């Protein structure tokens, strides 16, 4: 009964396909392609710039002028360059932190909160031990910063390992908790009594501040950052522990078969991840602002996610990408003079991350002709 009906249908559809076949292309995954090369990364960033250019244009500005202004603002003057370096210190430290977590697929997006926790812990040293000499107080602040950030990281790791709670949500919720805690301190108990109601702790003394390089605002926190990167690179590549992390990252189930306790690694990695961000917080209060204050981070912890992704978790590339994003933040401030909001830099950050993912994946495809 249904035979002739199917047959007519068939001939129709076959003609259709025969016609379209000549010109049709197919896009499929090319298994031989894995990591995208550097030029894809650059293309992706350029694409992001073009996309943001549309929004800038919509605001009645010429995107090229704006970008030029940003570049000269960030890299063109010695003031801009040192500012960029100053911004790249916390980005690099937080970037190492999130990169190490991403290596084992722990999606820590709480670097912001861990940064604040570190900053608060370091400030606590100055508030409660105000008279200590520099050679004691700075190491103590470093230690407390790392521990503070590390504990904040553990608060994410413990629910994840023992209660199977998605670390993305926990780490993000803890960012808000940290912000409110910070506000409590700077509006409440730690508020500078001589500060004319400014929401911030008393200014740090010389002994509580990281030394500066020459006359610039650049501080010796840079050494922490560089040392952190080198240590991270070395640990991953040459140690047993680094091997275990690589294995967990490549195939967690196989790592379990090799006798590696993944939960223990998650705890340790989140402790380190948070610790790095905490160190960033310490170096920021002690080296740049010299006090704990309201709104101390312009979103370093979030930018660090993109820093790490742009660097593909590669230690040395982290240095480059944190420098670039430091420049992006400074460039964002510099275009305020021509009437654009500084949030232009966070818009560009998001667009860059989008394009990086798209570019990295698109590279794995290849267009084939059908037939």
């Amino acid at each position: 009964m249904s035979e002739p009906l199917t047959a007519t249908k068939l001939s129709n559809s076959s003609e259709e396909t025969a016609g379209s076949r000549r010109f049709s292309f197919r896009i499929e995954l090319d298994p031989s392609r894995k990591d995208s090369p550097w030029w894809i990364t650059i293309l992706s960033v350029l694409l992001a710039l073009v996309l943001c250019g549309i929004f800038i244009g919509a605001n009645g500005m010429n995107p090229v002028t704006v970008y030029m202004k940003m570049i000269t603002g960030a890299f063109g003057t010695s003031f801009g360059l040192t500012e960029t370096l100053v911004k790249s210190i916390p980005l690099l430290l937080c970037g190492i932190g999130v990169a190490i977590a991403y290596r084992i697929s722990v999606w820590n997006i709480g670097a912001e909160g861990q940064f604040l926790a570190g900053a608060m812990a370091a400030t606590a040293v100055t508030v409660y031990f105000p008279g200590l000499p520099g050679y004691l107080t700075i190491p103590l602040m470093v230690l407390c910063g790392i521990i503070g950030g590390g504990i904040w990281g553990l608060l994410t790791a413990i629910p994840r390992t023992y209660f199977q709670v998605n670390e993305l949500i926990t780490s993000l919720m803890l960012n808000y908790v940290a912000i409110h805690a910070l506000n409590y301190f700077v509006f409440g108990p730690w508020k500078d009594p001589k500060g004319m109601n400014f929401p911030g702790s008393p200014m740090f003394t010389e002994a509580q501040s990281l030394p500066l390089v020459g006359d610039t605002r650049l501080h010796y926190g840079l050494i922490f950052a560089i040392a952190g990167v080198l240590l991270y690179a070395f640990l991953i590549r040459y140690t047993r522990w680094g091997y275990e992390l690589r294995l967990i990252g490549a195939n967690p189930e196989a790592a379990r078969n090799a006798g590696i306790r993944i939960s223990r690694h998650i705890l340790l990695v989140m402790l380190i991840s948070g610790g790095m961000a905490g160190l960033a917080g310490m170096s920021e209060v002690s080296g740049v602002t010299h006090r704990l204050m309201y709104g101390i981070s312009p979103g370093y912890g979030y930018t660090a996610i993109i820093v790490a992704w742009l660097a593909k978790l590669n230690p040395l590339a982290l240095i480059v990408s944190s420098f670039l994003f430091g420049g992006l933040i400074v460039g964002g401030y510099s275009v305020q003079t021509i009437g654009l909001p500084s949030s232009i830099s966070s818009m560009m950050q998001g667009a860059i991350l989008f394009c990086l993912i798209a570019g990295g994946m698109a590279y794995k495809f290849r267009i084939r002709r059908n037939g």
Partner: protein
Amino acid sequence: MSEMYSVVMNQIVKRFGPVIANDHVDFRAKTGEIHALLGENGVGKSTMMCMLSGVYRPTSGEIVLHGKPVHIRSPKDAMKLGIGMVFQNFRLVPNMTAAENIVLGEASSFWRGPNWIKRKQEEVEALARHFGLGFPVNRPIWQLSVGEQQRVEIVKTLYRGADLIILDEPTSVLTPVEAEQLFETLYQMKAEGKTVILTTHKLKEVMASSDRISVMRKGKLTHTLDKADTNERELARLMVGKEMAVAKSLESHSPGKPLLIVEKLDVYADHGRKALNQLELRVNEGEIVGVAGVAGNGQSELAEVLTGLRAWRKGSIRFNGGELHNGSVRGAIEAGIAHVPENRMKSGLAGSLGAVDNLLFKTYRTKERSRFGFLRTSANRAWTQSLIEQFDVKTPSVDAPVRQLSGGNQQKLLFAREIHQDPLLMVAVHPTQGLDVGASEGVHQLLARMRGEGKGVLLISEDLDEVMQLSDRILVIYNGQMVGELARGEASREQIGMYMAGLRESGEEQAV
């Protein structure tokens, strides 16, 4: 003349990137016959059938159905053309009921109240009964046994009015008794004028069930024969390409002292289901013990417990004179238990890492491989190089990601790692799954060599031939218990099949 063929596939080519899966294949099946597509694992049988069912599209070539050329671009097209396929890995949604699975994709009636569901359930039940296929229609799929799931799959194709039914390795998940029932159903379909194509690598089945046979080798279809004109021996020769060495069993020898003694073991699977129930097991030195059984009767859990991946609740495991640490992978490795896991790329190897990192898995803590927490990088590379040569692993370099290697080379790499530790016991789970005859032979030799060296081997496999060929003793696992034990020589397929189905010799259902 094309009228008598319901399917004609002409000069089909299918490439996956650089790999050619099907190389100018001509295949034709007559209306109303049971046609077997015979070939080893990985020769492209399933790929051919997936093109017929619209899962893949051919790179080039032509498909003619009932004399009309067709382009099958999607499973939906195939369905409209009356083609239904029962895949080896069932295409069922586990959280839905059998009836829901069967009506899935049906466009009619947007609104589905309780009445509609009831009517459909009755319809499905009637259809199933007609073809002698029984299963509960309103229970979720995950509660059904594998055999029942397959029946759901078959009814699904029938429900959609398929007159060409393709079954991909249908008996690999069935007990011999269930396989018999399946063949009955296939005869019934044939009697109603439906065309049945089944792919398989089992010669006995082909001879038992089919009318005509096409043999595939290395992506090409080499012969098509009538069953009446051929025999098992000829088919074997055509399939392998040479006279297949008659699988010879190992010479029996008297095993050594007990190595592994498992007593009254209770193990729970994820989500609290009891997977092993008072399980008893003993492996001696110099002995291969085969564990046969239908998938999901506790095999995976047994392997996991022995290798420390899963903890046990009750009972004891004594190994080499001492107690085994409960749930410690490191404890198992250090005690000398090697493990070839079920799915090598899923849990045995890290695909994106190179050979060095993959070989280091279990030895990186030893002082030969690392010192004071630092890896001895150059020594490890040299060591990798020597192991690769010793085990004849073909890889472009020691750093090339192992996912680029062929299945056989991956398995060799895995065996190199496991045997290199000089273990006392090898737990091998489906060690030849997905390998061709040559590579399987290599794996069998490695296992036999371990036995010769006085080591114990626990071979867990669904391939009954493999188990019967290699094992000194065969244990049959059913519902988390060893229900039968047979020595080499006294085991027959029929008897093992009875045990696998949970039946004693008397044919009574065992009380659980």
